[in-house]
């Protein structure tokens, strides 16, 4: 599985200029796949004269890049891991920026009858009972961690589910493609699903359980651990990400008339 994790590694620079300030931000593949970065980064450049270099990886890798001081901040979606990141001194604080939700996607025929599930736990139990094909990110990403937690809450262990459970070790887009090819069930963040162009026979079968809430948070890397970290630029970006301007852009980002993210940041106290 590890060998496939490199799939999610990409280095992306949008609109870099020679004289602008430059900072590095590790973001999740699900955020990048949503297309929102392509909207926000040029505006950040215009407003702050700040080039944000994105390193697009899974949440696990983003946290590692933060811990090693390779980036100035991270934007990820795995609350427990984020809180550990701050608690162990790797990050200075955790600022919630926006959320969307996870959805359970599967074949229209819905052999496991997930569409009738009472909650997310019930939905996964139905998939397991039917031994219906399920595709997992399997890449230590925030989505993967959420899926493992859901299996656990359903009284099941993801590693012992049988050959109907396919861990692909890939980013969200590639995992959705696999699910489409296998006509399988999958847990996806809503933004990636809406943005996914190869839906095939798949559809959203279950959503709305509060446990599927998907919060994105911004965490600057601690400059006391890595003196080269661009602390001021990280704080400048935080101020922008929590501003009314960012709220308007984030809330206004739609695909096919559907909003992908809801802004819920509180302004920084400093």
């Amino acid at each position: 599985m590890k060998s496939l994790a490199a799939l999610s590694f990409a280095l992306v620079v949008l609109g870099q200029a020679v004289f602008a300030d430059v900072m590095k931000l590790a973001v999740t593949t699900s955020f990048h796949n949503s297309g929102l970065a392509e909207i926000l980064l040029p505006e950040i450049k215009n407003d702050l004269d700040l080039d944000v270099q994105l390193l697009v990886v899974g949440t696990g890798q983003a946290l590692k890049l933060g811990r090693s001081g390779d980036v100035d901040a991270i934007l990820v979606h795995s609350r427990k891991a984020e809180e550990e990141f701050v608690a162990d001194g790797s990050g200075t604080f955790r600022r919630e920026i926006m959320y969307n939700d996870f959805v359970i996607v599967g074949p229209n025929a819905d052999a496991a009858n997930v569409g009738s599930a009472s909650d997310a736990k019930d939905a996964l139990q139905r998939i397991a009972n039917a031994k219906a094909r399920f595709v997992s990110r399997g890449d230590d990403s925030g989505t993967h961690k959420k899926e493992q937690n859901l299996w656990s809450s359903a009284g099941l262990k993801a590693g012992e589910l049988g050959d109907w459970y396919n861990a692909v070790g890939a980013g969200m887009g590639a995992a959705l493609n696999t699910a489409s090819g296998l006509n399988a069930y999958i847990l996806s963040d809503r933004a990636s699903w809406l943005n996914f162009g190869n839906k095939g026979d798949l559809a959203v079968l279950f959503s709305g359980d509060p446990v599927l809430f998907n919060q994105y948070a911004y965490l600057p890397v601690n400059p006391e651990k890595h003196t080269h970290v661009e602390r001021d630029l990280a704080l400048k970006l935080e101020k922008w990400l929590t501003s009314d301007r960012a709220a308007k852009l984030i809330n206004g980002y739609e695909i096919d008339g559907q909003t992908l993210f809801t802004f819920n940041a509180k302004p920084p106290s400093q």
Partner: protein
Amino acid sequence: MTQLFPLKVTGAESRRRGKLLVGPVDLELGPTGTTIVIGPNGSGKTTLLSLLHGTSRLNAGQVTWACSTEDARRHQSFVFQRPVMLRRSVVDNIAYPLGLRGHDTKTARAQATEWAIRVGLGDMLTRPATVLSGGEQQKLALARALISEPKLVFLDEPCAALDGRAMREIETILTEVKAAGTRIILSTHDLGQARRLADEVLFLKGGLIHEQGLAPTFFDQPQTSEAQAFLKGDIVE
């Protein structure tokens, strides 16, 4: 053994805020050689490469490979015009993709050292990558892209900011990896580079492929007036 090609693109479009950046594009690419994507600034070269690689959002149409998309992605690398350097040494930057793939540090560093030597960075293994010159950073990015032995490498204007010597070194490496069987898709606005490297040319203008053909045919007998003007060095809008 995974086969990526033919790569088929049908009706592909990329938009930003409703504005059409590229497309609709219909295209088929075969398994060997170097495809050069040329065209004036703003013609959509970078967006087209990103669409093919999957790092840019496809708003319409399809990009399909002979294998599954995830298999295809696993066997690709991308070298950006301005590569991002991790705040690590040269050798650790090159080794990074192997670490992601589960190689132990010793093995990854040994292979990274070989690649560093191959691209001419052998005497600066422990130097912080962020202090390298533009040409050195681009050579590092190329080594980092090639260390995982991809079947296909995308390069977006890899020599745009380089001097002649660095450009020659990059082109030499690309010629070698092509000879070893790696498929290359490279964008450039440098006609000289296009002539030196191309087996096949895609000429873009206004987000559309105006002409596609084998290099000798394209350079000697361009079919469209826009391509003829571009090859003459005229300003093509």
